[in-house]
């Protein structure tokens, strides 16, 4: 959907939250983003999708995180949403799939800094070490009592936490609390 068509004002759930920058971990909210949930059984030969579970195909603007054998979280800049949709429809045209717009369902928060992984581990039970959760990893998991998709888009200690919008206040608060505790030695 092209934003130019919209007259209504857009209000994101964490709009008022300022970045929280602590000594060893910082928490930022990320701007709106186009996202789709793709479900498909057969993606063989589709370069952007045909990769192992838990890994992400990344380009400068788009990502396709494989969350399960038949599920991907797709993302693109807001303005590229329609293009992304069309691209998938083209690539999978002869196959059975489900593509559902979830741009407004999900909210993204970024946590970065040397203690970012430790802060996430306040609520995320996964092994986030370099070997277990390297650059390009993405998975659905938990942060405390909220379900999240956790992605690590680069080699830097930067993590993207996606959750459903009504859990965003909780997830954001949790990360700030965790970042401040993790920062204390």
């Amino acid at each position: 959907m092209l934003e130019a068509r919209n007259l209504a004002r857009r209000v994101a759930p964490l709009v008022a939250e300022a970045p929280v920058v602590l000594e060893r971990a910082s928490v930022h909210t990320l701007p709106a983003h186009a996202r789709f949930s793709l479900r498909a059984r057969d993606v063989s030969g589709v370069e952007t999708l045909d990769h192992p579970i838990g890994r992400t195909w990344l380009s400068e603007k788009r990502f396709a995180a494989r969350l399960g054998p038949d599920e991907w979280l797709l993302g693109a800049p807001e303005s590229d949403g329609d293009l992304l949709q069309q691209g998938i429809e083209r690539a999978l045209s002869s196959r059975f799939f489900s593509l559902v717009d979830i741009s407004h369902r999900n909210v993204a928060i970024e946590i970065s800094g040397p203690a970012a992984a430790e802060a996430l581990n306040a609520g995320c039970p996964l092994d986030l070490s370099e070997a277990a959760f390297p650059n390009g990893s993405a998975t659905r998991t938990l942060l405390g009592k909220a379900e999240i998709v956790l992605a690590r888009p680069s080699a830097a200690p930067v993590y993207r936490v996606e959750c459903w919008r009504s859990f965003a206040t909780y997830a954001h608060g949790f990360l700030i609390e965790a970042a401040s505790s993790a920062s204390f030695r």
Partner: protein
Amino acid sequence: MLLIDCPFCGKRPEVEFRCGGEAHIARPANPFAVDDQAWGEHLFVRKNPRGLHAERWIHAHGCGRWFNAIRDTYTDRFVETYKAGERPSVDLSEARA
């Protein structure tokens, strides 16, 4: 907290999963072909063994897939996990009662 080997995602902590009880209880193809007694057993009677148990799990906060597992209900050790629709490699009839 158990560590469960999801056939799709590998070993992950139990809190990401939900247990669905005994596995391999097929819903009768025609439920009206079974009598009340058999239907009641289908709904409610469970093996509940002390020992090897075939059970269903879903990696709810992970890949979202249902799968099966063989777990020893006395030691809580998983013997194997396998995808829905597959059969286990261990013979459960030899499992200790």
